[in-house]
């Protein structure tokens, strides 16, 4: 797909201020070859997309680019109407606060309790303990971890860790929620429950992008998907139906 000749995938649904816009973006690690090639992507507020692709297709790299863990080697990355190449470090931090991320490896801090891991994004933004305590407890209770508030992450099962990671990603009610294989370690029932949580957040206005190789889950959700193939983004048929 040539970015020069083709309109961005997931075309604007009417809102003129996209949450995310990638224009002719390529990305590589250090001096290696390009992992992503000429990516054009535009997500409007309220969009809900799946990102599919084979292992090694570049799904996690694309997500890293979007949640500002890595810079593009060329092209433009716009987040919330800001060109990230022109942002100061402080502005980048402020952009990251508007993005909730469920990392594939969870990235839970073993020396902190489940409660403190989930509260981390709020604490990092300077919120007071008393202001977020009830919200965090309520969220953890909702994901079925109300009895594990003081537990250390290393004592949890894979599925429980994943729920903690998801709770941490959504606790700040992000404008953009990115999840890398969020249901990979949970049973189908919990998977459906978590998808309902993502849908609920999307209904409340968050734009959601979920990387998954579980095509059954993608089909069952009815949401459109983007497909990465050898670092190039292709729209699946469902994409043409719009973002919601």
């Amino acid at each position: 797909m040539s970015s020069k000749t083709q309109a961005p995938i997931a075309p604007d649904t009417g809102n003129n201020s996209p949450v995310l816009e990638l224009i002719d973006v390529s990305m590589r690690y250090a001096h290696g070859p390009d992992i992503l090639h000429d990516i054009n992507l535009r997500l409007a507020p309220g969009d809900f997309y799946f990102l599919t692709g084979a292992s090694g297709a570049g799904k996690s790299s694309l997500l890293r680019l979007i949640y500002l863990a890595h810079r593009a080697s060329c092209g433009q990355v716009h987040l919330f109407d800001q060109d990230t190449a022109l942002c100061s470090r402080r502005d980048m931090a402020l952009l990251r606060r508007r993005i909730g991320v469920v990392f594939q490896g969870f990235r839970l801090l073993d020396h902190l309790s489940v409660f403190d891991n989930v509260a981390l994004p709020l604490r990092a933004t300077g919120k007071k303990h008393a202001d977020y305590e009830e919200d965090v407890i309520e969220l953890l209770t909702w994901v079925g971890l109300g009895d594990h508030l003081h537990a250390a992450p290393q004592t949890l099962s894979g599925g429980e860790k994943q729920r903690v990671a998801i709770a941490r990603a959504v606790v700040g009610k992000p404008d953009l929620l990115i999840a890398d294989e969020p249901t990979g370690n949970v049973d189908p029932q919990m998977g459906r429950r978590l998808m309902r949580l993502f849908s609920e957040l999307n209904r409340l206005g968050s734009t959601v992008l979920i990387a998954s190789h579980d095509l059954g889950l993608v089909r069952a959700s009815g949401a459109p998907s983007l497909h990465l193939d050898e670092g190039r983004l292709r729209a699946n048929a469902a994409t043409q139906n719009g973002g919601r």
Partner: protein
Amino acid sequence: MREHSPITAPKSLLPTRSAQDGPLFFVIAIIVFLACVSALIARTSFNTAKAWRADLNNAMTVQIKTLHNTQKSAQSAAKLIRALPGIAHVQVYSRRQAKALLAPWLGAGNIPNDLPLPIPITITLEKNSPVDKAAIEKVLRKNHITASVDDHRQWARALGKSAWFLQLFSIGALSLLIAAAIAVTGFATQASLAARRDVVDTLHLVGAFDSFIAAEFERKFASLGLRAGLLGAAMAALVLGVTQIVLMRGTDIMLPVFHLDLIGIGIVMIAPPLTAMASALTARRAVARTLRERQ
């Protein structure tokens, strides 16, 4: 909603202990100990040299060198010297005292009674006395008394140089120790940062400002620096205090007596907060440098 046990926010988002903390604590404590000892030695050497020089500057020694009636000549000389303005005290040594002075070299009782001995006269000057070596030589010469006058200027100069070198050495050692402390803390912070990369990355990705992440490390290293500084300073005070007591009891050790005066106590008191501050600043700089290298 279900009742939950109370939750308290952790003071630090960093692990309370890590493998590097123990060795770093002791290295900083040892450096602070050595720094305090160096500073106190510099201070003591300065004070001692100052006191010795003041004593030497206010004192002169006259040696009566006549072969006959030496004691009588000494008494005459003393009388002449006492008559000069600005003389606080004049002491004439008796022949017995002069013999006692030579005893360590010649042995007690080995000096024959008919052996002429130079008789020393010690002179203590008043503060800002107009009398100098030349004035005393002049008055003795005028009265035909053969004597040599020593105003200890050579000793005072040598002592001043020695004290200056000792101070310079102590200040140099102190500077090197401070530089070593900063380098060690910086190195340890980098190691700590590498060991806690997961914490830094996660905080970074959830939108924490660099200053917030740096403050976490700053607090941790300030606390470590303060505790290590307290231990090092306490050890220095203890060691120097014991040394002071031993020296004041009168041993044969030729060392200046440590006086833990107000400035000395100030040095010991200020070392821990200074160490904490240096550790915190070094940690902050190391974290800021590491974070700048990230996206």
